[in-house]
């Protein structure tokens, strides 16, 4: 769980860095260069297989863990502590993860799928910059992206800290630092991601 989670966090950093190239306001020149590299480099494409494998492993492990844990108290409490003893998002990882998954389906269907299909059939990549420009004119697409980024943020607020605690780093020396870096990451990365559809929708780009 923790290892696949951290791998996905590393993926987010790379993905976020590459896509943020659109904010050079150069009509997508630098972004397309970076996207071309990511789309054709053999090493990256091999890692992409690993990414899907890890994502699926993460989902299967996470969801089966959540269902198993839920079954360990067959008789539920009539009154439960709710948020008095733990934050809601730490108890909602499976729900937040599933929302991220729903977002991912749309996201892959809109960009990754058509691009790979085009590469297979014509050997050419699509212009993802103009694709974004078109797709992000639709308010409902932007809304789903908001939902995805919002869920990701809360998933990470717990997930980042949790992964390091699982690996045994949660002692008094590191705990405060891990928690703060985790919260910072969970705010900054999803905001940068959401700025992308928003920027196209608002015609800043």
């Amino acid at each position: 769980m923790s290892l696949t989670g951290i791998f996905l966090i590393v993926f987010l950093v790379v993905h976020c860095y590459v896509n943020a190239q659109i904010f050079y306001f150069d009509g997508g020149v630098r972004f397309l260069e970076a996207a071309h590299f990511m789309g054709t480099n053999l090493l990256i494409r091999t890692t992409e297989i690993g990414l899907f494998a890890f994502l699926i492993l993460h989902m299967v492990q996470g969801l089966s863990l959540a269902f198993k844990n839920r079954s360990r108290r067959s008789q539920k409490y009539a009154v439960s502590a709710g948020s008095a003893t733990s934050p809601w998002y730490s108890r909602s990882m499976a729900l937040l993860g599933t929302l991220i998954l729903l977002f991912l389906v749309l996201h892959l269907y809109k960009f990754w799928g058509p691009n790979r299909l085009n590469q297979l059939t014509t050997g050419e990549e699509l212009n993802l910059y103009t694709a974004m420009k078109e797709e992000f004119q639709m308010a409902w697409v932007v809304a789903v992206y908001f939902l995805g980024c919002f869920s990701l943020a809360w998933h990470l607020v717990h997930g980042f800290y949790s992964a390091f605690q699982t690996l045994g780093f949660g002692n008094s020396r590191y705990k405060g630092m891990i928690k703060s870096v985790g919260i910072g990451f969970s705010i900054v990365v999803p905001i940068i991601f959401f700025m992308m559809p928003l920027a196209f929708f608002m015609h800043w780009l």
Partner: protein
Amino acid sequence: MQHYNMNLNLKVWRQKNSKTSGAFETFKVSNISSEMSFLEMFDVLNEQLVAEGKEPVAFDHDCREGICGMCSMHINGRAHGPWSKNTTCQLHMREYKDGDTIVVEPWRADAFPVIKDLVVDRSSFDRIIQAGGYISVNTGNAQDANALPIEKQQADDAFAAAACIGCGACVAACPNASAMLFVSAKVSHLALLPQGDPERKTRAFNMVNQMDAEGFGSCTNIGACEAECPKGISLENIARLNREYVGSMLSGSAVEGLQQ
């Protein structure tokens, strides 16, 4: 603080044994003093039931001073009631006011089956201890306590972990019904002292395995256990248990032991 008396409505879980399903029963108690402990309030209820010729409510208790860990009530959704670092016997009725309704349930976890009413079977904890929560020592005279120098911080951390009274509030509070905080306290106080070294390579692995076998859930770092633990056992112990667990897995001897 002003002393006062109160009348209360109690909704208490009644269950004949682990085979039958239970249900809530409602009682009224009157003239409860704000100076009583929560368990004394239950004594009043039970005397009333005995006088009426009814079956008293079964509940666990022993020391009534917060050290034995027996009193195991889930009160209005909170293990040991609303006070922090507190057992049920240490909860006092000044927390409540006249006319309040209080819902009292047993610890709920499949690994803690209900024996009767509010009493649950926590022998799964004993079996986790038997799986590795012990040390090998030479018999004979006790060794001089000062013969083994131990760093102060190390000794303090071991002492803090050894404060666990095995009450099970961590399990009761955990949304996953995981016993990780309990196991981590028991592994930690031995892992921090040289006396724990001989079994170190197998202890964490065997105890966590036993925890899983008993039907406790797995830890997902939610932290409700730490919030409800009457002895303030810290989540740092879980991080240490995770390190010890990886250590005992990598050493291989735990895995070999399992295969035998």
